[in-house]
C-alpha cells in the first residue's frame, strides 16, 4: 500500500526524516519496500491568472494568453489547450522553472511569437493522467502562490507491505495510529461535521435488509440527493495520484479517498437505478448473474454474497459493484454504502470469481465495524462539500448484533519469560494502552484489556506479548545462545547415511544434480518406465503439462540434464541425483515416497589427456560403479538380465541385493535417447536406497591375512562363447579348497586364432597358506581338479 507522509501528518505529529520514519515503521512490522519523493524536481511553478486570450496569428490551434503571476507585468504564454477562460487560475511555469523529470522551461518563440512560460495540465505536474487541458485551480487560491506547497506536491510516499493479520494497517489512519502508539504521541482523529438536510429522511427513501447477519454483520448507508457529478478538486487528485489511484469523478474519488484514509471500502450506487430503491444483502441464487464494473458478465451462485435491489444483483458484496448501478455523469441521487462483510465469504467469493480488488483484499483481512460508520460519515461530509449534494438525515444502519469487544489478560511475568527480557510492568501496560486497548482490570502482576474493534488479530496473551515486544523493540532484547538438552534417539538416522553415500559418489567422480521432482506420463513412458494414469501421483493444478505429476524415477530428470549439457558442448558426463520418487498408494491418504540414487555416464572414460588415446565408456563402466556402490553398502549383489525398455537389449541388468530387487542399470535404448534428444551412448543406473539402506548390516569380522607369500598361477582356457564368465569363476572357487585365496579374471578374448564359437579366458589364481610358503607341488592337485571340472562341467579346454 502507498501511504503519503503529508496525509499521515494530518493525524499524528511526526518529527523525523522520511528515512528515519521508514526505518521506524519497518522495525514496527510495517515493512517499507520503497520511499518515493514526489514534487522534488518541481521548482517555481506558481498560481497565475489568465487576463486575456487571443488567437495566435500564425497557428489555428494555439492561443496567445496574458497570464498574471502577481509580478505586475503579465507573461505572454502560447498555449495549445482550450479548456480555460479569462479569469481562470492555473499553474504557471515562469522562465527558469523546472518540471518533473528535471524538464527546464525557458523563453522561446513559437511560430514567430514569443512565449515567456507555460501553463500546466495535471500530467505536466506529475499528479494525474489528464493531459487534455490545463489544470484549473479553485478561484480562492492566491495569485503567485507556490503550486507545490498549495497542492502539497512536495510529499513522500511509502510503499508498505501490509501483513495479512493487520487489516487496520491498510489505511492512513491505521498507520498513523501505529506511529502514534510507538512514539507516545496523540492520534488526532478529526471530528466529522456532517450537516444533513431535513427535507426528507433517508429511511423514507430507501431501506436496507440483511438476509444473513453472519455474512454481513453491519450494513450502513446514506442517501445523497441532487449531486453534481464532476471533477474532484486538484488537491484530492494529487493525493489519489500519490496513493496510486486514478481519478474518475468526484463521487468515486471520494469513496477511494476515504478508503485510503480509513482503510474501509465504500461503494456508491446510483440510487435511481436501484429497483424500488431497496438494498438487500443476500447470497446469490444459482443462475443469477451480474455485469461488474470491469465490464465482465459474471455467473453467480449460492456461495457468493451479493448486494441486490428488489429484483437483481447490483454488486458482488465487498468485491466489485455492478455496471448498471454505477455512478456516472448523469447520476443525481446516490446510495452510499459502508458495510462489514464476513472475511471468509469474501475470500471465497473473490477466489471463485477470480476477482481480487482493493475492497476484497481489505474485507478479507477483517473490517472494523466502528470504522464503517466513521468512513461513511467522512465520505458523506466530503461529498456534501465537493459533490455539492444534500445528505438526507438519518442513517440506514443495520447492525443487528454489535460485536462484543474481546478481553485478553496479560501477565507481566509471562511476557518476560517469553521474551527473555525484563520489561517493567508499567511499560508493558503503557504500550498496550497506546495501541488503543482499554484497561479493564489491573493488578500488580497482570492486566486485562479490552481489544479495540480494529484488532481482529488479538485473541490471546501471546498476541499482547507480541505487541509489547514490538513497541519495546526486538533489537532491545539481548541475544543468548540456547542451552539445549541433548536427546538420545536419532530422529532421522538415514539422513546421515544418505549424506555419507553422497560423499562417496562424489568421490567416485560424479557431479550431483537436483532436478525438479515433477514428471509427466509421457516423459516417463519415453524413458521406458510405467507412466499410466494410475502409476503416478498427479497434480490437480500443475504449472504445465510437463510438470503434471510427481516423478516415479530419477532417470527422466537425469536424461534431460544430460541432453542439456550435451547441447552446451559438455560431452563427458558423470551425473548423479539422490532424491525422492513418489507412487500412489491405495487406501492411504498420502502417496509413498522412496529414496533413489540415479547415475548417468556418457562420453570418455577418463578426462581427455594428451598422453593417451580416448576410450569411451561402455556397459562395464556403469556396472563397475554400481558394484562399487553396492560394495560401499557391504553387499554382494547378483545381477540378472533386464528387459526394461529403457535399455538396449542385452546391455541391461537388474540388481538383486539379498534377493530383493534393488535397481537396474544398462545402456539407454535408442528410442529413449531419441525421446530425450540425446545423440550419444548413455549409461544409467537407478538404485533403490530404501532397499539398500534397509538391509541389516553386521559389522565385518576380521580375517587374518596369511603371513606367507602367495603362490600365483595363471590359467588360460577356451570356453563356449556364450558361457558366463561367472560360471567359470564360481567353479574355480568351488574346487579351490582352503588354499585358494583369490581368482582374478584378467583377460577375455575372442577373435583371431580362436574358434568362432569359443572365447578365451585368462585367470589368475592366488594360493596362499597360513602354514608355509607354497610351491607348485602343494597346489598341483587342486589345479588338476579345477581343470578337470572345467572340462567336464563347462566344456572348457586349457590353452
Amino acid at each position: 500500500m502507498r501511504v503519503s507522509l503529508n496525509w499521515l501528518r494530518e493525524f499524528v505529529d511526526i518529527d523525523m526524516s522520511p528515512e528515519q520514519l521508514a526505518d521506524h515503521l519497518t522495525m514496527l512490522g510495517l515493512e517499507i519496500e520503497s520511499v518515493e519523493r514526489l514534487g522534488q524536481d518541481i521548482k517555481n511553478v506558481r498560481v497565475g491568472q489568465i487576463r486575456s486570450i487571443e488567437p495566435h496569428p500564425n497557428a489555428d490551434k494555439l492561443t496567445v494568453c496574458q497570464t498574471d503571476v502577481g509580478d505586475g507585468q503579465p507573461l505572454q504564454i502560447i498555449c495549445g489547450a482550450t479548456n480555460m477562460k479569462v479569469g481562470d487560475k492555473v499553474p504557471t511555469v515562469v522562465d527558469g522553472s523546472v518540471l518533473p523529470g528535471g524538464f527546464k522551461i525557458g523563453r522561446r518563440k513559437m511560430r514567430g511569437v514569443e512565449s515567456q512560460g507555460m501553463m500546466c495540465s495535471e500530467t505536466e505536474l506529475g499528479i494525474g493522467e489528464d493531459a487534455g487541458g490545463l489544470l484549473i485551480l479553485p478561484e480562492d487560491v492566491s495569485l503567485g502562490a507556490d503550486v507545490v506547497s498549495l497542492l502539497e506536491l512536495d510529499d513522500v510516499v511509502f510503499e508498505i507491505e501490509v501483513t495479512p493479520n493487520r487489516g487496520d494497517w491498510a489505511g492512513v489512519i491505521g498507520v498513523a495510529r501505529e506511529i502514534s502508539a510507538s512514539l507516545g504521541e496523540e492520534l488526532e482523529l478529526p471530528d466529522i461535521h456532517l450537516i444533513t438536510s431535513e427535507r426528507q429522511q433517508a429511511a423514507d427513501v430507501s431501506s436496507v435488509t440483511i438476509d444473513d447477519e453472519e455474512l454481513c454483520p453491519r450494513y450502513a448507508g446514506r442517501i445523497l440527493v441532487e449531486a453534481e457529478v464532476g471533477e474532484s478538486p486538484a488537491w484530492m487528485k494529487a493525493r489519489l495520484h500519490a496513493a496510486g489511484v486514478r481519478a474518475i469523478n468526484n463521487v468515486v474519488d471520494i469513496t477511494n479517498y476515504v478508503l485510503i484514509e480509513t482503510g474501509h471500502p465504500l461503494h456508491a450506487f446510483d440510487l435511481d437505478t436501484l429497483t424500488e430503491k431497496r438494498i438487500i444483502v443476500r447470497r446469490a441464487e444459482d443462475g443469477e448473474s451480474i455485469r461488474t464494473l470491469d465490464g465482465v458478465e459474471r455467473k453467480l451462485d449460492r456461495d457468493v454474497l451479493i448486494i441486490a435491489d428488489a429484483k437483481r444483483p447490483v454488486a458482488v458484496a465487498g468485491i466489485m459493484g455492478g455496471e448498471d448501478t454505477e455512478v456516472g455523469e448523469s447520476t443525481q441521487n446516490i446510495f452510499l454504502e459502508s458495510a462489514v462483510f464476513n472475511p471468509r465469504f469474501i475470500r471465497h467469493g473473490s477466489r471463485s470469481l477470480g476477482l481480487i480488488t482493493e475492497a476484497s483484499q481489505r474485507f478479507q483481512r477483517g473490517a472494523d465495524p466502528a470504522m464503517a460508520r466513521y468512513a461513511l460519515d467522512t465520505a458523506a461530509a466530503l461529498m456534501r462539500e465537493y459533490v455539492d449534494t444534500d445528505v438526507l438525515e438519518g442513517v440506514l444502519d443495520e447492525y443487528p448484533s454489535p460485536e462484543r469487544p474481546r478481553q485478553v489478560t496479560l501477565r507481566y511475568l509471562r511476557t518476560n519469560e517469553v521474551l527473555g527480557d525484563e520489561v517493567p510492568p508499567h511499560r508493558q501496560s503503557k504500550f498496550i494502552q497506546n495501541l488503543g486497548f482499554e484497561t479493564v482490570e489491573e493488578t500488580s502482576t497482570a492486566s486485562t484489556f479490552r481489544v479495540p474493534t480494529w484488532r481482529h488479530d488479538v485473541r490471546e496473551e501471546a498476541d499482547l506479548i507480541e505487541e509489547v515486544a514490538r513497541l519495546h523493540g526486538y533489537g532491545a532484547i539481548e541475544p543468548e545462545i540456547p542451552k539445549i538438552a541433548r536427546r538420545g534417539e536419532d530422529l532421522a538416522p538415514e539422513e546421515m547415511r544418505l549424506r555419507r553415500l553422497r560423499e562417496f559418489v562424489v568421490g567416485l567422480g560424479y557431479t550431483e544434480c537436483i532436478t525438479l521432482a515433477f514428471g509427466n506420463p509421457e516423459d516417463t513412458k519415453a524413458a521406458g518406465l510405467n507412466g499410466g494414469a494410475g502409476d503416478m501421483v498427479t497434480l490437480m493444478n500443475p504449472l504445465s503439462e510437463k510438470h503434471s505429476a510427481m516423478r516415479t524415477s530419477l532417470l527422466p530428470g537425469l536424461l534431460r540434464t544430460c541432453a542439456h549439457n550435451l547441447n552446451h558442448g559438455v560431452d563427458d558426463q558423470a551425473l548423479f541425483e539422490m532424491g525422492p520418487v513418489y507412487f500412489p498408494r491405495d487406501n492411504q491418504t498420502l502417496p509413498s515416497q522412496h529414496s533413489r540414487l540415479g547415475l548417468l555416464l556418457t562420453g570418455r572414460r577418463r578426462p581427455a589427456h594428451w598422453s593417451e588415446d580416448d576410450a569411451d565408456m561402455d556397459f562395464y563402466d556403469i556396472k563397475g560403479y554400481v558394484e562399487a556402490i553396492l560394495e560401499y553398502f557391504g553387499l554382494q549383489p547378483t545381477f540378472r538380465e533386464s528387459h526394461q525398455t529403457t535399455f538396449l537389449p542385452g546391455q541391461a541388468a537388474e540388481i538383486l541385493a539379498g534377493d530383493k530387487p534393488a535397481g537396474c542399470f544398462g545402456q539407454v535404448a535408442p528410442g529413449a535417447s531419441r525421446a530425450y534428444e540425446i545423440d550419444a551412448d548413455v549409461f544409467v543406473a537407478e538404485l533403490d536406497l530404501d532397499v539398500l539402506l534397509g538391509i541389516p548390516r553386521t559389522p565385518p569380522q576380521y580375517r587374518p591375512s596369511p603371513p606367507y607369500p602367495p603362490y600365483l598361477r595363471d590359467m588360460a582356457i577356451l570356453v563356449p562363447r556364450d558361457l558366463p564368465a561367472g560360471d567359470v569363476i564360481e567353479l574355480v572357487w568351488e574346487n579351490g579348497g582352503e588354499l585358494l585365496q583369490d581368482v582374478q579374471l584378467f583377460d577375455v578374448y575372442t577373435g583371431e586364432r580362436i574358434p568362432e564359437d569359443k572365447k578365451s579366458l585368462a585367470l589368475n589364481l592366488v594360493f596362499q597358506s597360513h602354514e608355509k610358503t607354497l610351491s607348485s607341488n602343494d597346489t598341483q592337485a587342486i589345479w588338476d581338479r579345477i581343470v578337470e571340472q572345467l572340462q567336464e562341467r563347462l566344456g572348457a579346454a586349457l590353452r
Partner: protein
Amino acid sequence: MKEKLETIRQQALEEITHAAESEALEQTRVKYLGRKGELTQILRGLSQVAPEERKTMGQAANEIKEAIASALEGRKRELEAKELEEQASRNRADLTLPGRRPRIGHKHLVSQVIEEIVDIFSGMGFQTATGPDIETEYYNFESMNTPEDHPARDLHDTFFVKDGVVLRTHTSPVQMRVMESTNPPVAVVVPGRTFRVDNDASHSPMFFQIEGLLVDKEVNFAELKGALMHFVHSFFGKDTAVRFRPHYFPFTEPSAEMDISCTVCGGQGCRLCKHQGWLEILGCGMVHPQVFRYAGYDVEEVTGFAFGMGVDRIALLKHSIDSIHHLYENDLRFLEQF
C-alpha cells in the same frame, strides 16, 4: 719408496680430478686401489721393508690410500650429479602440461548449503528430522494455525494432489509431526523440498527450506535471537550485521523476520538490497500457543521457537548467483563452480 708413494698420490689425484665419466673413474680406482693396483702392490710389499721403516711407510701408504679413496668418492658423486643433470636436460617434465587427473565430482550447491547449515545447528544440539514431501492439508496448514480461508493461505500458492493432500508449501508441517511423536524437549532442524505454484525470475516451483524448532521449559525470544545470530555469524561471517523486525506468521507469536547486512554492499545500499542495506534471510518466532495445542503440549509448561529459511535464496546470496533457475537447470558448467 717414499718418493714413489708421493708420485702415486699425485698421479692418482690428478687422474681422479680429470676423470670425465664414471667409467674412467672406475678404471682409475682399479689402477691404484684394485687387487693388482699400484698402491695395493706397495702395501703388500711392505713386508719386505725394513722393520724400522715399516711402521712409518705403512702409515704413509694407508694415508695415501684413504686420500685416494676419499677423492674417488667425491669425484664419483660429482660425476653422478652431472650425469643426472644431463639426463634431466634430456627428459625434463613440462610443469605446464596437465597431470593425469581423476574425474572430480561436485556436490550440488544446494546440498552443500544444506549440510553446512544443518551442521551449524547440530553443533548447537539440534537433531535432524524429516517429513514427507506430499502432506495433508492438516499438517501443512491447519495444525500450523492456518485454517481454511485464513488469509495467510493466499501467500502460499499450493499444489494440490487431491482434496486434503498437497505438496508441502513449507517444512513447517514436520514441526507438528515431530511434536506428535516425541515429548518435549524437542530440538530439531528439518531440511527438505518444498513446493509452490510459482515460476518466474525469482521463484522455482520446487525449492528447499530448512526449518528449526526448539521446545522446552523456558525457551525465550532472546535464545531465538542467539541461535540465529550464531548461525549467521558462522555461515556469513562474524562481521555480518543482523536485525530482527516484527512480521506475521500464523504459527508463531511473536513473529519476526531476520535481515542480514547486504552481502554485496555491506549495508551501504546497492541494487541487490534495493538500496536498503539489508537482505531478508528467514522468518522466525515463538511457537504460537495454538500450535502447541494441536500438538497436545501444555502451553503453560513449555515455550518454544521456530524458524524457517529458504536454502536457495541463501545459496544465491552467498555465491552471487543471479537466478534461482541456475540451481535446478544442472548445467555442469554451473555445478562445477562449487
